[in-house]
């Protein structure tokens, strides 16, 4: 299969105006992906599917990712005038990355037996009506998975033929896979709570600080 740079160059040539970015993945998987812009995503997807050298006809997996707002602090060397002399001083700078939601598609070719090519799209922000173009018209197999992303992450897919909740009930209002989701507080006694469950248990039982761990909880006074 062609390299990702090659695919990117050919897709940009085939779809005039398309802006494609290569997102590197520094992890052990080393699986970089193509970031598509909303306006041309459908056309680029059609190119990936129909191009005779690629023929990525099988969309095996669609998933959502929630990226919260994050701050990355960096140490930068800055030249400053200290006591009349110019010196290099280390200063920490904070860089702010606004949060967004992401949809990731894994594509394979059944015809040419190659893959995967990973493409992704990002919403502008994490707001309630965050939108992305639907790729269901290109790969029919994305239909249920886009519905699942809509259900659990709250991304609205433009052009999806039947965008409804698929796992939760229609009256449900939350998006459980978002990182800031808090489930309803229906904690029930457990004999050995730990980690997150222990934190929940602490809210329901008065702590006994002389003991460590799970046993330092006692029944709340009724």
């Amino acid at each position, binding site marked *: 299969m062609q390299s990702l740079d090659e695919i990117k160059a050919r897709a940009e040539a085939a779809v005039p105006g398309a802006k494609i970015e290569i997102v590197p993945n520094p992890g052990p998987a080393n699986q970089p992906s193509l970031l598509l812009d909303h306006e041309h995503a459908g056309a680029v997807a059609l190119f990936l599917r129909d191009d005779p050298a690629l023929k990525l006809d099988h969309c095996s997996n669609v998933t959502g990712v929630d990226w919260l707002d994050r701050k990355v602090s960096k140490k930068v060397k800055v030249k400053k005038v200290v006591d009349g002399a110019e010196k290099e001083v280390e200063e920490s700078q904070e860089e702010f990355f606004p949060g967004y939601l992401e949809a990731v598609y894994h594509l394979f070719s059944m015809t040419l037996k190659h893959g995967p090519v990973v493409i992704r799209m990002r919403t502008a922000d994490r707001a309630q009506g965050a939108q992305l173009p639907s790729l269901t018209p290109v790969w029919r197999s994305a239909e249920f998975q886009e519905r699942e992303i809509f259900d659990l992450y709250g991304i609205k897919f433009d052009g999806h033929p039947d965008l409804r909740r698929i796992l939760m*009930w229609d*009256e449900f209002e939350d998006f459980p896979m978002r990182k800031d989701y808090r*489930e309803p507080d229906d904690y029930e*006694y457990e004999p050995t709570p730990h980690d997150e469950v222990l934190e929940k248990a602490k809210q329901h039982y008065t702590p006994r600080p002389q003991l460590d761990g799970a046993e330092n*909880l006692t029944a709340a006074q009724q």
Partner: protein
Amino acid sequence: MSDQIDEGLRSELQKRGVWVTSTQELYNWGRKNSIWPLQFGLACCAIEMIATAASRYDLARFGGEVFRPSPRQADLMIVAGTVTKKMAPQIVRLYNQMPDPKYVISMGACAISGGPFKQGYNVLKGIDRYIPVDVYIPGCPPRPEALLHAFMELQRKIDGQKLTGQDKASHLDREQPSEFPVPAFGAHDLEPPSNPNIFRPPAIERA
């Protein structure tokens, strides 16, 4: 009734060819040996339930092989598997549609308490939050032997039920409800999250 007839006298009469019994004994004997379960499964526990009904474990030995596809013909509801919050109202509705007397076996960790999914957002933390359960079977999933054991426990329970008097069976008591409110789909959870009339959350007990 066995507690009113002297057992010795009864067996003496039996030896002479006279069989003494009571309506209650006959009635319960008939009921306990033809328990018809409602035919539905929710998760992997249902596979064990199917195995129990098949020839190797043979639930028919206990009179429970007639799995009914309609709640109107069923005596027993085997809640076999994970009850998701989306499925819970349907389960309660099926229970309400079953005619009295009716019994419930809560099969497996999920049906008892939510099991491995207890801390999740979409699994009901035990079917006993909405309907009364007669026999609980622990296990993930329980083996067919465990389901057979639960079945025999249920038979024992049915055998001991009284038709009259203060402690008569609940289905004969007009005061006892035989239908329970079906929970509604809420914006964040089922509403109500449990039926306070039948469900008391387990309390912590420490010195």
